[in-house]
């Protein structure tokens, strides 16, 4: 039994899950996205050092995967803010930065448009239905 692939696969999945939720929730609350970007970059660098230092291939993969996912999360703060501007993610009116986005970008909204079930009947979903959805 060689557990390295299992460890790497589960690490990748959990790191993506964590990053997904963490970026969404943090971006929603913070007044500036610069501090979380710097923190994620610092964590990524620490993970990189840990992955370079260990002799174990399994641990090295674990830290290496965390390093790149945290670096990706740092970038995702920009992308998430962009999604808020586009209205592809809900703005938080209690956050002054988001309130400003809501004023400046007509596409921004407080509604979470993704929070619903797909229609699941491709052949009967008419264009009228998709437009009103």
């Amino acid at each position, binding site marked *: 039994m060689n557990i390295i692939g299992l460890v790497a*696969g589960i690490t*990748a999945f959990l790191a993506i899950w964590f990053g997904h939720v963490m970026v969404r929730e943090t971006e929603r609350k913070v007044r500036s996205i610069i501090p979380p970007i710097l923190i994620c970059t610092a964590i990524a660098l620490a993970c990189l050092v840990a*992955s370079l230092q260990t*002799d174990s291939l399994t641990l090295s993969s674990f830290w290496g995967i965390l390093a790149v996912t945290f670096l990706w999360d740092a970038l995702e703060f920009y992308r998430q803010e962009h999604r808020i501007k586009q209205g592809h993610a809900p703005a938080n009116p209690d956050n002054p930065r988001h309130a400003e986005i809501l004023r400046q970008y007509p596409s921004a909204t407080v509604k979470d448009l*993704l929070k619903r*079930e797909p229609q699941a009947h491709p052949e009967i979903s008419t264009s009228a239905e998709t437009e009103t959805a």
Partner: protein
Amino acid sequence: MNTFGIEVGSITLLIIGLGFVWVIYGERFLGYLWWPYFLLAGILMLTASLFIPSAWGSVLVGIIGGSFIWGSTEFKEQAVRAELGWFKNNKNKIRPPFERIIKKWKAPHL
């Protein structure tokens, strides 16, 4: 200095990047109701990785398996994005086996 981890990390980034692409096309041509098959494929790959003696072989199969599990959780939101017009919405999808049963299950998302 053990550079194995950062090499694995870089490949992971590439595999996740490809994940965004195949989720878009998978949803467009197959539809989100295929999610249990992608989840199952991911679990099978994670299990198979245990029996691959080479470190690189095991890691690659494991990470691709992990990305399939992630992709299976991304399908539902992608389907909504297509319905909202943010992505091309193809109405003639290839339907999955046991569609009736799958529809009764709640599709996972992160």
